[in-house]
């Protein structure tokens, strides 16, 4: 089989739609185009039926008791905003303290920052050098004013999987609402809102081979019932929690993507892990001074985040332009700051500048993995020949003893 370039290995940024998902969606653009809120004719009824079926498919994937606990949104950014602001605004009479981890997605961090401006107190919980939240630290941060804890299931950059079940138990014990951004982990690692005492969970379709522009927030309905103040006012759709005409085709695709994951996710996770481990082995067996960022034990099966010491990330991306991956280097981000996730783990800016994230996915092959590994080895060697830092390292100079001229 011939390879198709560029090879896509950035499946934590987004995933292509599964053709089965697209097929399920198509009739809802042209034939069954009705407004799910139209109660007076068949067009509306079939749209509503399709939405309800999808609600069930999403609910089943995460172990929710009732389909009605799924509130469709435009994506996980909206879900995160709705969870944080919705809880904060509804429960502000109960307390004003919120805990989020320092490595949350920007949608959570920036929503928390906005709440801070409104007068809420926010604790940004540190993670350890493996990129994991420590329960003791979390417990210490909890006060009688804490109304919400938001900690992600799995991190988007380093793939570390947090101890959600233990965090859920801790929150339940103290009657604190627990939100998790589950976007990266669903269908890949065990996740069940009932078993893990999760009260709110953000989900999105485009990371699981569904379309962009559709996501959901799981909102627990019983024991305890979680209330939210709506952030979007209008026609009162989605049980009054999120107004706006439903994206029926998107919802159908999201449902189908969840159904496929529920059926095939476990086998797929095994296959992805094999591919990921093959990639890692083929790189580290041939290159020195490669550092794995984040725990390998508590990690998504398809994620790899490596720092290639003495080589800068953006120049790596340029060297491997036949491969679509991403870097924690400042040069590749709009903010010109190196990755805050790596920073929170205590990884120095120099190593953050040298990091690459690989995310293997459903449509990657062994042949592609081998090609990427070979390319990485070749280009890292080439760039190290160009690197004064590599030369100094070879000469035995400790780079930390040099007085650099920061600019």
């Amino acid at each position, binding site marked *: 089989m011939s390879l198709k370039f560029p090879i896509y290995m950035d499946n934590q940024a987004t995933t292509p739609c599964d053709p089965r998902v697209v097929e399920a969606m198509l009739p809802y653009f042209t034939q069954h185009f009705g407004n799910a809120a139209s109660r007076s004719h068949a067009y509306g009824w079939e749209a509503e039926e399709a939405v309800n079926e999808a609600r069930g498919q999403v609910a089943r994937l995460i172990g929710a008791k009732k389909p009605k606990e799924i509130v469709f949104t435009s994506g996980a950014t909206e879900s995160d905003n709705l969870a944080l602001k919705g809880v904060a605004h509804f429960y502000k009479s109960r307390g004003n303290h919120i805990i989020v981890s320092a490595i949350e997605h920007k949608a959570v961090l920036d929503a928390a920052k906005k709440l801070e401006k409104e007068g809420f107190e926010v604790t940004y919980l540190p993670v350890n050098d493996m990129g994991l939240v420590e329960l003791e630290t979390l417990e210490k941060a909890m006060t009688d004013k804490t109304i919400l804890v938001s900690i992600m299931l799995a991190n988007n950059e380093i793939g570390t999987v947090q101890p959600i079940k233990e965090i859920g138990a801790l929150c339940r014990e103290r009657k604190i609402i627990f939100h998790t951004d589950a976007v990266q982990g669903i269908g890949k690692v065990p996740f069940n809102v009932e078993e893990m005492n999760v009260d709110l969970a953000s989900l999105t379709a485009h990371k699981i081979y569904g379309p962009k522009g559709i996501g959901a927030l799981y909102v627990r309905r019983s024991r305890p019932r979680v209330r939210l103040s709506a952030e979007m006012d209008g026609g009162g759709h989605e049980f009054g929690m999120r107004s706006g005409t439903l994206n029926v085709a998107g919802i159908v695709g999201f449902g189908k993507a969840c159904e496929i994951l529920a059926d095939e996710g476990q086998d797929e996770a095994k296959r992805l892990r094999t591919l990921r481990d093959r990639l890692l082995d083929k790189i580290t067996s041939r290159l020195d001074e490669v550092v794995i960022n984040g725990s390998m034990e508590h990690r998504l099966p398809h994620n790899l985040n490596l720092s290639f010491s003495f080589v*800068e990330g*953006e*120049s790596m991306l*340029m060297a491997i332009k036949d491969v679509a991956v991403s870097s924690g*280097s400042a040069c590749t981000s709009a903010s010109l700051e190196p990755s805050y996730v790596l920073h929170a783990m205590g990884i120095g800016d120099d190593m953050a500048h040298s990091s690459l994230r690989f995310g293997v996915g459903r449509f990657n092959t062994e042949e592609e993995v081998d090609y990427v590994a070979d390319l990485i080895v070749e280009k890292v060697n080439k760039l190290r020949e160009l690197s004064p830092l590599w030369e100094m390292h070879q000469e035995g100079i400790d780079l930390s003893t040099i007085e650099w*001229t920061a*600019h």
Partner: protein
Amino acid sequence: MAYSDKVIEHYENPRNVGTLDKDDASVGTGLVGAPACGDVMRLQIKVNDEGVIEDAKFKTFGCGSAIASSSLATEWIKGKTIDEAETIKNTAIVEELNLPPVKIHCSVLAEDAIKSAIADFRAKREAKKELAGADEEQPATPPAE
């Protein structure tokens, strides 16, 4: 990020990559930048008795634009006197490589690297002169220059 053709060309075929003996009296070395900032350039010049840069070498840790800027810098300074090389401005590098605003610091670093290498060479030459001056008092040593 879209790179200009010239950046890509320099990045793929960098000129004058390598190392000169930093202990050689005719060699000046400039090491600028910092790993934490994502770019470090080392630029070296070998200067003859007429003050002409006979050879220049670089190694750079940094993005494609940083590599291209330093590659271009070595190309430009070769054959120039140190006084001429010193007048090279980062804006000329920006223009030649079509660098976007976020990459201007790469050209600044290249200018700094040239200046720093020249300064290192001059410092060495001064030190040598002083040494030679001191030596003159001793009759056995042949006069310097």
